[in-house]
Each structure stands twice: as structure tokens, then as C-alpha cells.
């Protein structure tokens, strides 16, 4: 009877644990120092935004007219603005705005809409495909920013009136007090235009996946369309979603900042980086108090740069052919 030494085999198995593709991708990403740094920066900024009310030393609308345009000091590390409001606190609350807008928009316009519509178009083809893709073509042919401005301007009064009406019925002021109505409008408009690019990519990917044996097998079992889409096709398109996500988060953050800068986004006194940059960018202010523009501008720059670099790394890790 031959003696089989299994100890070396268990050792080998222990060295090579069964890993999922997702886990392997994460490990490959963690080996890139720059990507990890970017990830940490993004997480830190988002945590600051989420816990803004507990972190910020002052309220975002707390004025002290005796202390306007102060330089950096121990009481106000980033100085104060025209109304003596603490810039550090306003930056922290502006981050809260960015977190809310980007996460809400990405959850709908960045993931759900492109995923569902793209997979549906790619899987069902025929007239479903035509309707979805033609709608996308029309939306992407529109001049984006003028449209965003127009829609927010025209919809806001109706929408705010509707929300106030709703509040009267329920007996609360929460939606208008927290600026939730503004957030919702901005994120709705951004989602409306945000899904097209992602849906197009996913549709192309599903075209190649739908012929796979496991899809045919699922069909032969009589699996429903939603089950095939979300159970069998979704894992194959997840890398595309993750890569697109990083770019989408940055673009959405910038869009909100732009809309707020020209006065149609988040309404004062609720802070946003757009409002902070608008306060700091007039020539007379910038010449004498450059920190009012450079600090919020620097934070935005850091965030966008981190998203860009992380997106690059994710792209290499998840979609490159030469692994």
C-alpha cells in the first residue's frame, strides 16, 4: 500500500485559498500605493461629510460680523468669510452636500438606471433596445449644462411648492429645513442625464455575454428575465460599473458645484463648494483673501484628482487584458 503524503498538498491548498474574482481584484488594487492613498483620501473626505454636524466646530450659518475676513487662527483654522462665518465649518458642511448629492445620484443615475436599462436593452434587444437606446441618444444630443440650468430653474418653484404642500399635510418642516428639496431636485436632474454612457457600455457587454452557455442554461430552466439579468448577467458587467462609478462620482460632484456656483443649485445658507468658490472668486476678494478660494478649491481639486487616479487604477485592474 503506497503511502500518500497529504501534508504537502494541504499546505499547497492553504497557500492558494479559493478566491473570488472580486477578491483578487481588490488584492491587486491594494498593491498599488497611489490607488490606496486615493481611496483613503476619498474615504476620509466622505466620513468628514457624513459626520459633519459632530466634527464642525461652528454651525455653517453662524455669523460673527466682528470677525469678518479673518486670516487663519486657532479659533478659525481656515479663517472667516465676509460674514465672519468659519470657513473650516463651511467646508465640512459643503462636503456633506457633496456626499449626499453624489451618493444619491450614483445610487440611481449611476448604478440602477444604467444597469437595468443597459442590461435590458442588451438582453431583450428588438424594440426594447430601440426605445432605450434612442431615448439615450436624444438625451445625449442635448446641450447638457444649459438643459440642467433650464430644468432646475423651471422645476424648482413647482417642486418646492409641492414639497411645502406635502409638509403641511404631514406636519413637518424637515424637508425644507435640511435643504432636502434642493438635493432631491439636483440629483433627479443629474440622474436623468447621467445614465446614458453607462447603459451603452453595459449593453455592449451584455451582447457578448448573452450567448454564453450559462445564460442559455438558465433560459432552458425557464428563469424569468429579472432573474437572468440580476442573477446571471450582472456579475459579468460589475467591473464596468465599478470603473464607471469612480468617474461618475467626480463628474456629479463637479456638476453640482457648477450649478450651485451660478446660483441654481443648492440654495443659501446651506453651504456647497460651489457657493464657497463663488464667494471667493471675485477679483477684489481673491486678491486680498486668496484662502477663501484656494481652500475650498483645493479640497475639490484633491477629491476630483483622487477619483481620477482611482478610476485609472480600477480600469487597469478590472478591465486590462494583460493580467
Amino acid at each position, binding site marked *: 500500500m503506497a503511502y500518500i503524503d497529504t501534508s504537502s498538498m494541504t499546505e499547497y491548498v492553504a497557500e492558494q485559498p479559493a478566491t473570488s474574482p472580486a477578491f483578487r481584484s481588490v488584492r491587486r488594487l491594494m498593491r498599488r500605493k497611489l490607488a490606496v492613498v486615493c481611496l483613503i483620501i476619498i474615504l476620509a473626505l466622505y466620513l468628514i461629510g457624513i459626520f459633519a454636524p459632530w466634527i464642525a466646530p461652528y454651525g455653517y450659518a453662524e455669523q460673527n460680523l466682528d470677525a469678518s475676513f479673518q486670516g487663519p487662527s486657532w479659533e478659525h483654522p481656515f479663517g472667516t468669510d465676509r460674514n465672519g462665518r468659519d470657513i473650516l465649518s463651511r467646508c465640512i458642511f459643503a462636503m456633506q452636500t457633496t456626499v449626499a448629492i453624489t451618493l444619491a445620484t450614483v445610487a440611481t443615475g449611476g448604478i440602477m438606471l444604467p444597469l437595468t436599462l443597459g442590461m435590458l436593452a442588451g438582453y431583450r434587444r428588438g424594440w426594447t433596445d430601440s426605445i432605450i437606446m*434612442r431615448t439615450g*441618444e*436624444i438625451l445625449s*444630443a*442635448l*446641450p*447638457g*449644462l*444649459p*438643459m440642467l*440650468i*433650464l*430644468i432646475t*430653474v*423651471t*422645476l*424648482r*418653484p*413647482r417642486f418646492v411648492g409641492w414639497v411645502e404642500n406635502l409638509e403641511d399635510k404631514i406636519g413637518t418642516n424637515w424637508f425644507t429645513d435640511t435643504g432636502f428639496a434642493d438635493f432631491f431636485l439636483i440629483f433627479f436632474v443629474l440622474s436623468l442625464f447621467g445614465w446614458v454612457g453607462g447603459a451603452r457600455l453595459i449593453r455592449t457587454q451584455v451582447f457578448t455575454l448573452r450567448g454564453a452557455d450559462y445564460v442559455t442554461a438558465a433560459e432552458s430552466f425557464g428563469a424569468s428575465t429579472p432573474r437572468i439579468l440580476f442573477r446571471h448577467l450582472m456579475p459579468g458587467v460589475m467591473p464596468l460599473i465599478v470603473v464607471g462609478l469612480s468617474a461618475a462620482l467626480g463628474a456629479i460632484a*463637479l456638476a453640482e*458645484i*457648477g450649478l450651485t*456656483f*451660478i446660483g*441654481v443649485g443648492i440654495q443659501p445658507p446651506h453651504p456647497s463648494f*460651489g457657493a464657497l*468658490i*463663488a464667494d*471667493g*472668486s471675485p*477679483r477684489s476678494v*481673491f*486678491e486680498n483673501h*486668496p484662502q477663501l*478660494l*484656494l481652500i475650498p*478649491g483645493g479640497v*475639490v*481639486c*484633491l477629491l*476630483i*484628482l483622487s477619483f*481620477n*487616479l482611482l478610476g*485609472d487604477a480600477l480600469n487597469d485592474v478590472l478591465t486590462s487584458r494583460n493580467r
Partner: protein
Amino acid sequence: MDGLSGHIIRRLLFLPLTLLIVSFAMFYITRWGPGDPISIYSGQYRDEEAFDRVREQYGLDLPIYQQYRIWLSDIVLHGDFGPSFQYRDRDIPDIIFPKMWVSFRIALFAFILTFFIGIPLGIYAAVKRGSWIDPALIGTFLFFRSIPVLVLVPILVLFLSDRWGLVPPGGFDGMFTASMVIPTIALTVPGIAGVARLARTSTLLAMDDDFVRTARAKGLSEYVVITRHVVRVSVLPIMTTAIGLDLVSLIEGALFIEILLGIPGIGRFVFESVGAQDYNVILAIVMIGTAAFVIANLAVDLMLIVIDPRIRAGQRGLN
């Protein structure tokens, strides 16, 4: 060949349909917004009699689809986009075309510059793959792209204009004047990273092709291999993807730059018109802009068919 001409004919037929749907949606939205047209046009006369007169004069007492039909037939038959609220005695095309011309010249300048800097940089980065130059180049331009235009422009104005007095701080005095410097830099710098990255990717792909190996095997110098063989193939895909992307970002970037620098272009005018609730003007701009965008994309496709024999032969599809 059939699929290709079919593709183009379908796109051409699709343009009027796109414009029709867009125009109706837009028309409906603008009639829905704050400051209904009636109270805007009646101006200081705020009594029922004046409202009725205005309603009748502009056909606002009709149901919305009839208003839309009249508005649309005026455009199609007479090129008349309706009255502007801010400039009552002038036709809308007369107001917006000079402004579009200003924006177009600035965008064209930035567009050409983006490609002339971005493509060679991307190719150079691809050739230097594996050394520190490649990531350093791409990283530098990613950094520049991450600076929001809203922050970049005030910094440029502070240094180039206020501190060193090299260029005027704003306005527009013509295509080849110092007033072009700041808008051109602000529009070009963010776009370079995108073009350079596309150029790098497509050059890397082309360098793996068989004919490149053949060229190397023939003993051609690396310089000749890159400039004569690789570049020809790699530049085309950049044009397709980048032109579309760049057009959009140029239009969007232009809006902020025109507002910040006080340039009398179309972006700033959109902003002013929204503020003044001059909806006929905005409708006109969006319609013309949409048509221009669709036609520009079609022109790029046609150009590619002319340039690339592989697309003509149907070996490669258009996106």
C-alpha cells in the same frame, strides 16, 4: 456597404425626430416654469385687461399643443423663433448668432490646441511605457484636469492680468488678441489629459499589431516605426472618441469661463436668458445647439469613413 449607408441615412432621418421630441419637451417645460409668459410680456401693466390682451396677442389662450404647433411652424416656415423678452425689437437669430460666433472661435482655438498638445504627449507616453516618464506625464495632466475651471480662471486672472499685466482681465476683442489667452488656457488645460490618455491607449494597442513587428523586423529605426506605422493607425480612434467628448466639455467649460471673464458668448447668454426668463431665446439656443451637435457627430463619422478603408469595407463598425 449597405449597412453603412443605412446607418447614415438612419442618423439623418433621426435628426428631425430628435429635434421634434426635444422641442416639445422643452416647450412644455418653459411654459411651466416660474413667471408665466403672460405676466412677463404684460410687464408693468398688471390688470386682467392687459393679461387678456397679451394672451390674445401671443396666442397664449390656446391649448399648449396648438401653441406648440404655431411656434414650430413659425420656425420651419419663416425661421422665426418668436419674440425675445429682453430684446423686443430684434429677431432671435440676429441676437444669438454673433454670440455663438464668439464662443465658436474660442472653442475652435482650444480644440485645435488640445489635440496638437494631447496627441503627441499621449504617443510619447506610450513609447516611454515602463519608464518613469509615462506615469509622470499622465499624472501631471490628470492633476491639471482635476483643477475646476472655477478655480483655475481666477488664479490665471490674478497672475497673468493683475500681477504681471500681460493680458486684459476679461472681455473679448477678436480672435488673435491678448484677450484670447486666458480663455484658451482655461479651456485647453483640462482637455489635454483626456486626449493624451486616449492617444496613449490606442498607440499601445497599435504597437502590438503584426505590421509593427514586421516594420521592426525589417530593421527600421524605432523613430520611423512609430511615426510612419504606429501613429497612422493610432490617431484615428482618438479622433472618433475624443471629438465627441471634447465638444461637450468645451461647451460646458465655455459657460463658466464666459461668465467669469465677461465674454459676450453664447454660454453667458444662456445664463442671462434663464435669469431673465427669456424662454424663447433658450428654446432657440437649445434647438440650434442640438442640431449642431448631431450634425457635427455625423460629420465626424463621415470623415472617418473617408479616411479609414477598413470601415468602408465593413471590417470595422462605427461605434
